[in-house]
């Protein structure tokens, strides 16, 4: 045991996240954790389990399923919640499309990314969730760099970046009226490298597609997209096989992969430490809409 009373930065980040989980459990009635099977949400769930040991976390998890997810990720999601014994609630974008609440984009580049927001808000409303844990990190994107750990959402689920509550010390203000809710981001101060270092240190299992594997890919808009049944090929696009891995996992139609041979957490850590491109810059078409792409979607109620 250390005698200098110093914490490593990962221990300090873990402590901060655990504090946030416990604060929510103590002060909210119906929290829920957004769990997609993506690495950030896997780390989030891992921390939630650790925060309440030896009791189970006093909340369940929810996934907004676009219907365009990677099969490997959905399989991992179901296996993980079963292993951990947590409740999973799936909100399907397809349901909202079928009910006519949202209209699907058309064309070969159509994406359901933006439609997720309506489904998420419906799930929150129907279940009267008052605190919603998300795995967003401030280092991901510049609008997120301004996000609070406890982020207030009005009755329409919307974010007002110019009217955020000051957050000081480790005192969080989760006060809200009925119908409003708080998005909670325990990983706010983690970076991509921190997340991977933690995954390696804690030996946390992830969906297989985070590690190098062979698959059919196609070049589009400077990204490498996986060829799946959800992707419609454009004229002149020629799929080929490559050794790739995913840095983020979202909708299969807009989440790119990178060429990589990193097959273990340690190899991924080494690769990220050397990389010069952000994970969203490399692999997320949804963030390329405009300079304020993320801010606009967040205001609408996106994660």
């Amino acid at each position, binding site marked *: *045991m*250390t005698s*200098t*009373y*110093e*914490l*490593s*930065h990962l*221990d*300090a980040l*873990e*402590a*901060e996240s*655990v*504090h946030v989980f*416990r*604060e929510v*459990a*103590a002060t909210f009635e119906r929290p829920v954790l957004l769990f997609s099977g993506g690495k950030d949400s896997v780390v989030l769930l891992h*921390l939630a389990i*650790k*925060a*309440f*040991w*030896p*009791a189970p976390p006093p909340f369940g998890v929810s996934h907004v399923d676009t219907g365009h997810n990677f099969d490997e990720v959905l399989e991992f999601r179901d296996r993980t919640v079963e292993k951990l014994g947590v409740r999973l609630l799936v909100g399907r974008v397809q349901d909202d499309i079928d009910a006519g609440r949202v209209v699907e984009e058309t064309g070969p580049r159509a994406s359901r990314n933006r439609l997720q927001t309506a489904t998420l808000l419906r799930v929150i409303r129907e279940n009267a969730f008052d605190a919603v844990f998300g795995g967003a990190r*401030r*280092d991901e*994107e*510049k*609008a*997120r*760099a*301004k996000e609070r750990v406890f982020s207030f959402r009005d009755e329409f689920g919307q974010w007002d*970046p*110019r009217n*955020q*509550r*000051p*957050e*000081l*010390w*480790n*005192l969080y*203000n989760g*006060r*809200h*009226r009925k119908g409003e809710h708080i998005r909670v981001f325990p990983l706010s*101060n983690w*970076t991509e490298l*921190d997340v991977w270092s933690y995954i390696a240190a804690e030996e946390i299992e992830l969906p297989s597609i985070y590690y190098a594997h062979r698959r059919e890919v196609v070049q589009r808009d400077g990204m490498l997209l996986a060829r799946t049944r959800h992707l419609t090929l454009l004229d002149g696009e020629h799929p080929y096989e490559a050794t790739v891995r995913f840095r983020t996992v979202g909708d299969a139609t807009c989440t790119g992969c990178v060429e990589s041979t990193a097959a273990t957490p340690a190899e991924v850590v080494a690769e990220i430490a050397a*990389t*010069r*491109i*952000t994970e969203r*810059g*490399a692999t997320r078409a949804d963030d390329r809409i405009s*300079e*304020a792409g993320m*801010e606009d979607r967040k205001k609408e109620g996106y994660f």
Partner: protein
Amino acid sequence: MAQELLRLATAGSVDDGKSTLIGRLLFDSKTLFTDQLAAVERASRDRGEEYPNLALLTDGLRAEREQGITIDVAHRYFATPRRKFIIADTPGHIQYTRNMVTGASTADLALVLVDARKGVLEQSRRHAFLASLLRIPHLVLCVNKMDLVDWSRERFEEIREDFRRFAMKLDVPDLTFVPVSALHGDNVVHRGASMPWYEGAPLLHHLEEVHVASDRNLIDARFPVQYVIRQQNRDFRGYAGTVSGGVFKPGDEVLVLPSGFRSSVRAIWGPGGKAITEAFAPQAVTVELADELDVARGDLICRPGNRPHTGQDLDAMVCWFADRSALSPGATYTMRHTTRATTVEVRSLEYRLDVTTLHRDESANSLALNEIGRVQLRTRQPVLFDPYRRNRATGGFVLVDDTTNNTVAAGMITGAATRVVWHAATVTRDERPTRGLTVWLTGLSASGKSTVAAELERLLITAGRPAYLLDGDNLRHGLNADLGFRPEDRAENVRRVAAVAQLFADAGTVAIVSLISPYRADRAKARAAHSDAGLSFVEVFVDTPLAVCEARDPKGMYARARAGEIRGFTGIDDPYEAPAAPEVVLRPGDGDPATMAATILAILNLLDR
């Protein structure tokens, strides 16, 4: 890879080149990614700007980019093999004091920027004051744009002295100055060849090396219970929370407040059930007690011999955050403090503080957005607290407006509101014929403190200025005759001398203290007491090496200490903790005692300008 975490707050406006500096830190430490840089270059070109505007990196919101201003605290992350850094980047404009306060609340270090051409502006003073109000232990003043003043050493030193004079009125334990050019990179990550006269470390090197571990309070064990974890199957009942001070170990006798129950620690568990042998701040742990007690969120576990204050009447400094309402006496709010929430009423507003001049306006009857003042509060339930200067975690609070649910103020508890009424002086300090202050000479026995102090007293009297020498040895014959040389006696000795010096200074006299005062913490308290009273405190480190002092040994004390005849002699078998940031350092090569006294006098004259 066991890196430490360092949290820093940066303050300054875009004009000072703050964003460029941060961009430079990220870029030169290879944390800035190429796609981010490309996006910035593209956006800068679209805006018709000649150079990549690195401010676009941190200004994340549309309104910020459109108006060219920074609205909110932005968080930036970078790492070196030694440390991981979290930057809370706060805007410099006057209307955003609340952001600086927010960003500074958890910071270990504050980085304040000034433009070398403009020097120390009102804004820089404000940032430095807020950093000291929030008790950030380390302050770095970056004098930027040195390239635009021809890398002038004179200009840098002029700014340094100007800032130091202001900082003397504040409570800043560690102050460092670095001349940089963020645009060209000199002294940011690498030294560069342009300022060979600068002997200090480049900024990043300082950020990597600055010692922060000792800033934490490892003495006052404090554990606010955050959440109770029960697991029936295992008959488990544990109290989860984040250690807010001190060290807890299994087996420790503990006291639970406010109930007053005593028990002992059966076990301490880290996240996930890792057994912990020593828990300290800011670890998040779960504590099991040996006895079954009724303990709930909001209770506090401490050691029986060291408990926090308990009370309903508090004195506090508050910073007001709301733009649609003001703080005024009689209003009630919800106070969030440690893991408690209680209703609080503002009993009185003692004064509003001008953060630029430090002037106290006692006629003020409300605090508006970004204003800071001292209040008396009455809480509905007793609060378990420590003064903020002693512990940020148990001394800080926020106020929540019960109608809007917004966080409307941040507060720092200065202490329990005393029932002893402080007699307001009928004569104000400004009405006295002279202004006093305290000059505090510290150093080893036989370092020459008293000789220099006596010379200084003579110089001041000759110049027609009231001065009085408070000599440590002499005071031990009367005021401190009951004290010995144990650490607690030394602390009390320093406290008394500081209190007397403060009275002299308040009366308009220059109090010259000559006292070994070996411990840094005791001197810091003396400085803080002066700062609280609005009095200047000039710390003079008489830095005479031990060998020289020992060779002088006028009273034969070192010889006796070496022979083991006296125990606990400073420098021999009791430590002397040198000041980290004294206003003046005097070394044997600096001249005779009269010359040294003249050096101090020159600094005092500068202060009066």
